[in-house]
């Protein structure tokens, strides 16, 4: 049981890292970004590219993945989202467009890497006890956990102590107010995409360190990601982090309670549906919900 909880915490930490960006983009740009999961996949495959091509360890690819994810996010902002905001596209039109982006991105990876699962090339790792607890983790799992926690803390510091972060929080709490009050919106939008796209890609690298890579990896993670941010109350980065851990643990622990492994993904979806129906405002915050 404890082992399952530990696995859940690792997955949950990674979900949390990726979910922060989804919730910021959602609340600041009013975009339900169905392509977010594919940024996760993109990050994982960036690491794979570097790992196979240059022989680097996946962990060393983290900064590269961040830059790739952020750059692509900004590119899409310039090409697509800015124009759609200007023409006041409806919520549904935005959703459909983001699905288009998701399909294109995912199949770009299929085009180059094929549909079947792949692994990083590195020595096989043995699971060892973690911090003297009665649970074991591979070195990569331990790294992913520690890196996730560090990233979450970094985002926390950014949101808490920098002017940019405070502006972002203000914007995500009350979009109407901030859009009219003379904040340098373009700058905030750019940074939202840098953090959103970058963290998603980094989350992908970490996720890839704990399991095989395949092109639908991020798509399958997307619904748990939505579950996390909905549980946390949309627009609340801290809620998203808590929601991430919760979803990760629920998914893994369900296996302990006899749910077949094949249904692990379904457990995430069901958790999300239940979360939406029971807590449309999230477990923690009072999200803006109209």
């Amino acid at each position, binding site marked *: 049981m404890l082992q399952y909880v530990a696995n859940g915490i690792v997955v949950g930490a990674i979900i949390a890292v990726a979910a922060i960006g989804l919730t910021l983009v959602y609340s600041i740009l009013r975009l339900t970004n169905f392509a977010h999961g594919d940024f996760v996949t993109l990050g994982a495959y960036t690491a794979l590219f570097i790992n196979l091509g240059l022989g680097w360890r996946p962990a060393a690819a983290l900064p590269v993945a961040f830059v790739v994810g952020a750059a692509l996010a900004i590119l899409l902002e310039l090409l697509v989202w800015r124009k759609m905001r200007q023409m006041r596209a409806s919520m549904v039109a935005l959703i459909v*467009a983001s699905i288009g982006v998701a*399909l294109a991105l995912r199949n770009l990876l299929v085009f180059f890497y094929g549909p079947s699962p792949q692994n990083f090339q590195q020595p096989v790792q043995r699971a060892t006890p973690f911090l003297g607890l009665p649970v074991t983790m591979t070195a990569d799992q331990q790294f992913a956990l520690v890196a996730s926690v560090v990233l979450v803390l970094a985002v926390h510091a950014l949101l808490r102590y920098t002017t940019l972060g405070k502006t972002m929080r203000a914007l995500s709490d009350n979009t109407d107010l901030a859009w009219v009050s003379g904040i340098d919106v373009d700058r905030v939008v750019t940074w939202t995409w840098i953090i959103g796209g970058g963290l998603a890609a980094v989350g992908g690298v970490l996720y890839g360190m704990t399991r095989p890579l395949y092109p639908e990896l991020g798509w399958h993670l997307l619904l748990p990601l939505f579950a996390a941010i909905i549980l946390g109350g949309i627009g609340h980065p801290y809620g998203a982090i808590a929601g991430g851990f919760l979803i990760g643990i629920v998914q893994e622990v369900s296996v302990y309670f006899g749910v*077949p492994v094949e249904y692990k993904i*379904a457990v995430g979806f069901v958790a999300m*549906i239940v979360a939406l*129906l029971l807590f*449309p405002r999230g477990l923690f915050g009072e999200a803006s919900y109209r």
Partner: protein
Amino acid sequence: MSSYLMYIINVVTTAAVYAVFVLGLNLQFGYTGIVNFGHVAFMAIGAYTTVLLSLAGWPLIAAIAAGVLLAALASLLIGLPALRLREDYLAITTIGFAEVIRIIINNEVELTRGPQGIFRFPLPFESWGLSPLGWRVAFMILCLLTLAAVYLLLQRLTNSPWGRVLKAIREDEDAAIALGKNTRVFKLWSLALGSAIAGLSGVLLAYLLAYINPREFLPLTTFTGWMIMVLGGAGSNVGVMVGSLLYFGLFSLTRPLESSGLVALGLTGQQVGALRVILIGIFLVVLMMYRPQGLFGRKEELSLDR
């Protein structure tokens, strides 16, 4: 010559089957404003129910009726709790629901044979002793008749006072409630009817392919349906049929090009398939950016924009 004919027949039949599928979606979104991104689930339920029941010895008609009915009931399962959600939440929930259905089909191997799929099951016209080409023609006619029937049914409904209520809900549900309409009931009926139609299209798809397999019911199918709907302009039943024909027409025109040209360039079949989906994705984005009202829709009339 006959292979060329087969080819045309195939395009028309496929376009008809998908037109039925998207007519259901259009009732839900185009007329009622219900954001259903899990439409493929009801197609899958219709297909699997019908195939499994007819394998169990049910007469075809009864099996089809059961498939359609179960698709409608399943939509109520998700609609009853979820229809009150805002558009984006509903989109997420319906996708999640469809994925759960697909995962169940994929894993309940004893019931559905799982990822292996089902290859032999009773088809219509089997006792007629038709040649392969003859069967194709007969089946194409069946699909076109089904499409015509569904179209006429929907035209009558959407032009009736019932359809007027759906449109009012799409425009402003609160205002509709303020005028005394129990909008929830109308939304549930719209959802159920649209899903029943999706179930019917699933039955036709199963016969068209002559096998079923969970991979036919990926979310991509729903998104293709959305693309066909917005191509023709959401809210127009004729637009849906034109959109479907256009989509599969283009699809088939590029087929020969793919199989010869691209493969000659050294691409694998998988890569060609991926390229196609990339194009679908880009097309969706461009459509939403430049013509959210669809190729034929009038801007002021029916578009995805309020």
